[in-house]
């Protein structure tokens, strides 16, 4: 039955194509050589455009200062917790309950939140339309800002990762579980919220998710769940891979959605 239906549809498509014939265009080459087209194309298609590096520099100025400050604070906290004064016996005992990577794992969801919040800023303030009428499309702006913040976060995490085995007496797997996992988990959970919700609801939900991830990692460490997870072979790399892929897919959907928004505004404008 299905096969017959498919055959019918193929025959219908084939017959339709044979019914719609078009005479070859006669003035195509003349048009593309004409002065009217060339002048219009020169003005719009080949006009000097701003280079990528300059564009990224301009976008860097639009990223809010507290975003950079938060990154700096997390980095400073990681360094300070490693430094000598903290290594005295008394604080060491207090800190034994919560080792440095665990403290960082509670802070890192908020780093991810700051990045996501920056990406959703235009939507939160209802500024997409204004951004669209600006020189750069929302799609390009979003890619640039997320790219800058992504690289910045990547650098921070890449700097923090080797600190674990060297200073905090944790192996690489535990450091990854405490530093990379909360970041990827927060991204995976908050991006769908940013895609589907707008305004204050979105902010509240994303903050809630980040706080939950933060609390989850603190309790997971306290309940020894994190240590057992690290001891299970390949669990942490598998979790990192899973949440990494999920975060990338969500990010792709989010950027694609910004293109759809562009289309809507282009058609209704």
């Amino acid at each position, binding site marked *: 039955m299905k096969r017959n239906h498919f055959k019918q549809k193929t025959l219908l498509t084939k017959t339709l*194509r044979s*019914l719609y*014939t078009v005479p070859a*265009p006669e003035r195509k080459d003349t048009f593309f050589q004409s002065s009217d087209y060339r002048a219009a194309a020169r003005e719009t*298609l080949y006009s000097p455009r701003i280079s990528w590096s300059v564009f990224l520099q301009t976008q860097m100025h639009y990223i809010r200062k507290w975003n950079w400050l938060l990154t700096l604070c997390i980095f400073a906290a990681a360094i300070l917790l490693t430094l000598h004064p903290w290594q005295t016996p008394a604080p060491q005992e207090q800190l034994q309950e919560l080792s440095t990577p665990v403290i960082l794992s509670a802070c890192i969801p908020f780093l991810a939140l700051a990045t996501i919040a920056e990406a959703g800023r235009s939507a939160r303030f209802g500024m997409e339309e204004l951004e669209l009428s600006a020189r750069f*499309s929302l799609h390009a702006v979003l890619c640039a800002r997320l790219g800058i913040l992504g690289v910045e976060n990547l650098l921070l995490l890449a700097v923090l990762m080797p600190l674990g085995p060297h200073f905090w007496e944790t192996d690489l797997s535990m450091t990854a579980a405490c530093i990379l996992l909360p970041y990827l988990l927060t991204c995976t959970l908050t991006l769908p919220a940013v895609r589907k919700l707008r305004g204050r609801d979105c902010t509240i939900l994303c903050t809630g998710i980040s706080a939950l991830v933060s609390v989850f990692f603190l309790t997971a460490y306290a309940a020894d769940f994190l240590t057992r997870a690290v001891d299970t072979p390949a669990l942490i790399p598998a979790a990192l891979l899973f949440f990494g892929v999920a975060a990338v897919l969500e990010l792709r959907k989010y950027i694609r959605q910004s293109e759809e928004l562009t*289309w809507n505004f282009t058609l209704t404008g």
Partner: protein
Amino acid sequence: MNLEEYYDDIYRYCFFRMQDRSLAEDLTQETFLKFLETSTYHDRGKPLAFLYTIARNLCIDHIRHTKTRPESVINCDISIFSDAAHSSEGTAFSPTASVSELTDTSIVLVQALQTLSESDREIICLRYVLELNPGEIGRIMNLSRFVVYRRLKRALKLLKNQLRKEDFQ
């Protein structure tokens, strides 16, 4: 961005709608000039769908301004399309093949197509002849993807009802 590669697609669309070679070329060229005029378009999605949208609007504008529809179908046997040519639905998106190319099945299909509304023929043409996906058709016709799917299904059902079963076995 190489716009030349889209010329044939837009020309085909304009030809199917206007059924006039010279007019179709004029509208195609106007489409490209309009596209270039909207310089703010840079980096905003795929240009082909936007070009189709401009072409569609220009065709509609042209029909509104001239208030005339093509009187006969180019290359077609007037006896087959005479009813449709004088109907209020007009002949936009009517089949354009010459009568010598038509087989029995094609003739039945041509007659079935004439019973569809212009917008249904447009959707059928965009989907099966110009090979656009429902999302792109939706953008061009300012419809949601869901509506495009529903209309396509309805148009195909109407076509099937019109066709005798033995013609497609």
